[in-house]
């Protein structure tokens, strides 16, 4: 009812904020250039000689590592810096409505960026006959991946009024979320720890859970992982804001 109207108003304001500044367009261009570069050059899309987007999705965890915190870093730190947080949270709006509204707006923005990569789908369909179900799953996973990084950035941006600090802390946490399940690292770990321990650590990694999506496997456990990562980080955001207000 009322909650939804509030969330909608906040989403609209935040999204408007992205598109009235040139930053959004710069971001979109950089995002598209980088996805193109990684897919076609580093990922050797053509040399693979297969009709799939493996070389496209593989790079997403790394690409998002910097791009998503760049989108999320201002969410709460800017409110704190400008003092508008005092306005927003004394309106008839609950803290969670504000948190969800801001999160959804940025996630929507990232979804738009992701949607603009459609030419690779067109290309691969034109060159061969890929399994579009797998591609769809890849996009879904990528969206979840971006969402979980974004929720982390949301949390770090609530910690400080300084966007740069918010960005750096967020990159570090996301880096951990990658490395915990990144093969070279798990390889190293398994030399010193038992396989069981390595497995537990890797279970916290976005890599482990993004993997399935890339292969076109929609596993509820992976969905639950991303959903709970987002839920947890947003919950933590609420706790941080509450503590900040209590002084």
């Amino acid at each position, binding site marked *: 009812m009322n909650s939804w109207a509030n969330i909608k108003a906040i989403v609209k304001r935040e999204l408007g904020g992205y598109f009235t500044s040139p930053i959004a367009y710069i971001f979109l261009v950089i995002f598209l250039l980088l996805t193109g570069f990684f897919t076609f050059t580093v990922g050797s899309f053509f040399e693979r000689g297969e009709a799939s987007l493996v070389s496209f999705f593989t790079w997403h965890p790394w690409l998002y590592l910097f791009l998503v915190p760049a989108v999320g870093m201002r969410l709460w730190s800017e409110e704190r810096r400008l003092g*508008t947080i005092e306005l927003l949270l004394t*309106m008839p709006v609950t803290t969670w409505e504000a948190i969800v509204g801001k999160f959804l707006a940025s996630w929507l923005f990232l979804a738009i960026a992701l949607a603009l990569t459609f030419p690779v789908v067109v290309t691969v369909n034109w060159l061969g006959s890929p399994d579009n179900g797998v591609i769809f799953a890849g996009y879904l996973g990528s969206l979840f991946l971006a969402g979980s990084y974004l929720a982390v950035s949301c949390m770090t941006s609530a910690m400080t009024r300084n966007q740069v600090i918010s960005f750096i802390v967020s990159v570090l946490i996301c880096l951990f979320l990658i490395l915990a399940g990144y093969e070279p690292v798990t390889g190293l770990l398994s030399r010193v720890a038992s396989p069981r321990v390595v497995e537990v650590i890797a279970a916290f990694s976005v890599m482990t859970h993004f993997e399935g999506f890339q292969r076109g496997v929609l596993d509820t456990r992976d969905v639950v992982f991303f959903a709970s990562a987002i839920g947890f980080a947003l919950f933590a955001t609420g706790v941080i804001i509450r503590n900040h207000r209590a002084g």
Partner: protein
Amino acid sequence: MIKVENLVKAFGPKLAVNDVSFTVERGEVLGFLGPNGAGKSTTMRMITGFIPPTSGRITVGGHDIVEDPLPAKRLFGYLPENAPGYADMTVHGFLNFAAELRGLQGSARKQAISRVVELCFLENVLYQTIDTLSKGYKHRTCLAQSLVHDPDFLIMDEPTDGLDPNQKHEVRNLLKHMGEKKAIIFSTHILEEVEAACTRVIIIDRGRIVANGTPQELKARSPEGRLEDVFRAITLPDTVKH
């Protein structure tokens, strides 16, 4: 009615607000005076539910601001200290956002916005972004935001800060006029303002209420009948000791 009972706020070992109690009824304009760091803004932040009190109770129109914040928040308009605003939004966009969160829709929203635009003299800057506004206009924009839903209660932290003499005059008249129907709490460092607009004055010093009465009553405490003398007599010794 805004009712504040035994309000305390501690920041670490420091008591920013120490056992403050008062009520403001409709038809009253309460002026909040006190030296820098006295606890005026902290008190207002607690009344508006931005920060939780360490102890004590606040009700706005009968709703407890901690237990039942949303109904309480619907009843007041708030102008925070330094009049914050979203830098990248236009004045119109900002007011529209505020009105939307206040639940105003369609033509009611349009009317509400044009009413406050007129009230706060914002026609000329309506489509300018907030970060390009002069201090006074920024202040008026935030003031307009607090009035957009024509609330029963107004809480304003230094509403005339940064305004030119004409605008100060306008805002005082506005407060006085609105105070006939609403309950208003505002803080200020300008003593003439208190005499011009308030029906009652509270002087707060180092977190405690040190005087509470009508401007006339307080003035009568000084031989020359000047509020400034009273203010200094009550608060100066403490500030010097600091």
